[in-house]
């Protein structure tokens, strides 16, 4: 690519270091851009939610109707349908927190003043996944006791020599695979999506500024793809928030499933 463009500078594709954006300091506890976004989103969500639920009426207004739409999605189609109508109520705050926090943070990857997805730094998805991890482990141990919880990992009716293998596999699934996949999925989607957006934006800009003659025209499809993928990112933002709480509620529902 760089050979056909006789520009002074080479095109550098976006890569992982682009996501390291410290604002203050530089180290393990530096204040980074994503931290600020996360804190602002949290404060914004808290303020909006507290204000929106201050005066709820039985007959909803327009704002309340939207809030209820989001809450109904989390409550009915995820919480009630998957965890089951008997046990879903204690988990509603968790699911609703996760959904709103992830959704707004993901949308921050597209909204102009920020345009940097918080969840593309793995620390944040890991924090959320740890929350889910703690909740479903605690719920499982609380429901069956530690022994019952461990015993319940292995489905009954297996030949005795399979039991240890299955036990180890299930334990690894429970303790390692689930939180790791939960984290990596959210992180990977936002990270890859942002890299893709960066690639189109930077490529288009490079052709426009450093290209010669007709090569400048190539920037048009690049920018078009940028818009297209920005729209696609909205879908991804919503889907990832949905999927995160879907999986969280499936893990929680397993605690209440009577047979394995």
């Amino acid at each position: 690519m760089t050979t056909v463009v006789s520009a002074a500078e080479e095109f550098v594709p976006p890569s992982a270091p682009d996501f390291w954006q410290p604002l203050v300091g530089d180290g393990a506890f530096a204040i980074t851009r994503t931290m600020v976004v996360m804190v602002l989103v949290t404060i914004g969500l808290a303020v909006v939610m507290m204000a929106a639920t201050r005066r709820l009426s039985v007959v909803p207004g327009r704002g309340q109707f939207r809030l209820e739409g989001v809450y109904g999605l989390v409550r009915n189609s995820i919480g009630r349908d998957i965890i089951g109508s008997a046990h879903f109520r204690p988990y509603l705050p968790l699911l609703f927190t996760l959904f709103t926090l992830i959704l707004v943070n993901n949308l921050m990857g597209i909204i102009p003043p920020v345009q940097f997805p918080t969840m593309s730094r793995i620390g944040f998805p890991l924090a959320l996944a740890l929350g889910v991890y703690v909740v479903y482990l605690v719920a499982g141990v609380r429901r069956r006791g530690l022994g019952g919880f461990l015993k319940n990992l292995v489905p009954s009716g297996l030949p005795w020599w399979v039991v240890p293998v299955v036990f180890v596999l299930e334990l690894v699934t429970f303790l390692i695979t689930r939180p790791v996949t939960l984290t990596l999925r959210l992180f990977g989607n936002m990270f890859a999506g942002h890299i893709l957006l960066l690639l189109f934006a930077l490529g288009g800009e490079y052709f426009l500024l450093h290209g010669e003659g007709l090569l400048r025209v190539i920037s048009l499809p690049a920018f078009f793809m940028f818009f297209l993928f920005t729209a696609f990112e909205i879908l991804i933002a919503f889907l990832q928030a949905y999927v995160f709480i879907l999986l969280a509620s499936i893990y929680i529902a397993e605690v209440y499933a009577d047979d394995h």
Partner: protein
Amino acid sequence: MEGNLAIIGYGLSAIGPGVGIGLIFAAYVSGVARQPETRNVLQTIAILGFVLCEQLAIFGIALAFVFS
């Protein structure tokens, strides 16, 4: 032209999930076409399958960066 072998690895790891996701949504579409009233149930299941499939590609991209 420079490159990284890890990215080729990611490309390979994306083939399987690509096929899998295609199969999942093909089944979802035909299922909904056959019985439109089961759409809500199928939607959840399809997204779940999509996610479990996509997981592999995400592993691929994560590991690509680990070994780059």
